[in-house]
């Protein structure tokens, strides 16, 4: 639709103002991270003598290497697990008819509406009883079921062309082969969008790792940053370096899949 000219101008001004308010704090963080100690508190948008010393100090003062390892490892395992488990459930809902299917589907969707805060206490106790406290298990296993993945993938599988499936089954492929050899490879954009959503969720997670991790050997980046903030409140150079390191993976994953995701997201992804 074509807006009228004055509307267009108002729109550009509004959106430009919002974009600037988003970019400005980011620019400050970015420049502070590369400023030497004596420049940090002096204002000034660009560093006069750019340096990596903040990054060096970050890795010296904290167990950031461990945090990166824990965040990467748990996120990777979680994302793979969530995708596989989500694909399986979505296939069952999309391609089979069985008793209680609709009730079960409603229960899966209902879980989306139950925020973590409502269930954290018993899960926390469960983790302690299982001896999973302060291990990767506690970070991975309770988060493996993903209702949004089931919902999204089911939608896409239902609109999958039947000819392809019939052809595969004519060739003697069972459900398992059809699913992994025919359907999943053709769900590219949906899988990409989902991967980003799940990845960002897991990488940026704060509350749950805060509860169940204690030592540097299981702490994730986000919790490591919190600890650093509390121990070394005033070393803002290193803190800014830390938040840049913590943000790079999510932004990288996004840029990698970006085009497809925006399209899926906008055209089909979240339609109810």
């Amino acid at each position, binding site marked *: *639709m*074509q*807006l*009228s000219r004055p509307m267009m101008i108002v*729109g550009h001004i509004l*959106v430009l103002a919002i974009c600037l*308010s*988003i*970019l400005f*704090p980011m620019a*400050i963080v970015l420049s*502070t991270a590369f400023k030497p100690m004596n420049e940090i508190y*002096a*204002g000034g948008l660009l560093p006069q003598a750019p340096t990596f010393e903040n990054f060096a100090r970050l890795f010296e003062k904290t167990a950031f290497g461990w945090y990166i390892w824990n965040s990467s490892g748990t996120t990777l395992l979680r994302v793979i697990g969530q995708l596989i*488990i*989500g694909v*399986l*459930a979505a296939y*069952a809902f*999309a*391609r*089979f008819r*069985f008793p209680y*299917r609709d009730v*079960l589907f409603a*229960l*899966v969707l209902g879980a989306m*509406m*139950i*925020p973590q*805060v*409502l*269930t954290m*206490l*018993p*899960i*926390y106790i469960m983790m302690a009883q299982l001896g999973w406290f302060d291990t990767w298990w506690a970070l991975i*296993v309770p988060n493996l*079921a993903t209702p949004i993945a089931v919902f999204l993938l089911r939608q896409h599988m*239902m609109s999958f062309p039947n000819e392809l499936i*019939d052809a595969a*089954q*004519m060739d003697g492929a069972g*459900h398992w082969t059809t699913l992994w050899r025919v359907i999943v490879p053709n769900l590219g954009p949906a899988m990409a969008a989902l991967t980003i959503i799940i990845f*960002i969720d897991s*990488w940026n997670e*704060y*509350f749950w790792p805060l509860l169940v991790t204690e030592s540097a050997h299981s702490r994730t980046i*986000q919790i490591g940053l*919190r600890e650093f903030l509390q121990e070394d409140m005033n070393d*803002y150079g290193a803190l800014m370096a830390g*938040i840049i390191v*913590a*943000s790079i993976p*999510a*932004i990288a994953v996004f840029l990698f899949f970006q085009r497809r995701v925006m399209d899926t997201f*906008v055209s089909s992804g*979240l*339609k*109810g």
Partner: protein
Amino acid sequence: MSLHQPQKQVVAGAVPAGAVSGQPSARRQRRDLAPWLYLAPTVLLLAVFTYWPLLQTAYLSLVDWNLNPGQSADFVGLNNYGRVAGSTLFQAAFLNTLIYIGASIPLKVLLPIPVAVFLWSVGQKGHFYRAILFLPTLISFVVVGIAFLWILNPIFGYAKVIFAELGLRFPNLLADPDTAIWVIIGISTWKVLGFNVLIYLAGLASINKELIEAMRMDGAGDITIFRRLIWPLLTPTLTFVAISTVIFTMQQVFTPIDLMTEGGPSNSTTNLFYMIYQYSFVTFDVGGGAAGTMMLFGFLMIMAFVQFRVLDRRAHYQQ
């Protein structure tokens, strides 16, 4: 929903494939079991980590326990509810929760609408705007919280330097009970605005642009088109955004509260989620935490119900 139609064809297509290979009864049994095998991981995980804990929270809200496995949990009935509801912490947290939600409706639910409509009308050229708007969704709330702690730092923060250059004194926003909550509301808006814009864009994408051209031909202006066509067609998306924003506002602000204010100054920024966290994991009062959780659950149900009633009446236009 029209989604059920392709489903039947699919199942019909799957039947002959099984029937051809003979041994109908064995085949049938395997086919009946198959969906359950595919579903098993999700169903088990949700049962163990979502629905069972929900029931268990209800039970824990009736006992007195301090998370110590050696200690036995004493049944105290509804005592915890009265105790929590009567505390000043709960009253502050409840009031603040209403403020957080009240402020999030215009800022996070309504403000994204004109932005989305504008981007939609700009089309492909708006790609650059969209990418920038999406950036805050990618970075974590910890990152955002720490960045703003630095910018708003009253002694050597960036905002203070800029204010000083303009000859103004920069107030310590986070130490003032009147302003601290608005800092957190502002930051959480900064973080989720772009995501909600994208969801509205998804809703707008399904609107038939020919309808707009037709209205244009009849001489309708932008405002009329928005009021008579876009707004009604967008209502289902609005319902979705409103409900998810209310639920996630509870969760999202936990991180900035924990990092920037720890609920203070004088409980002015705490919310029900943070209160539950404090009961459960700071003072290890499991019964109090669980009772707070159940009250929050009830509150969220009521909110969702109200939103459905208010918004659903306007959602009859859905294609």
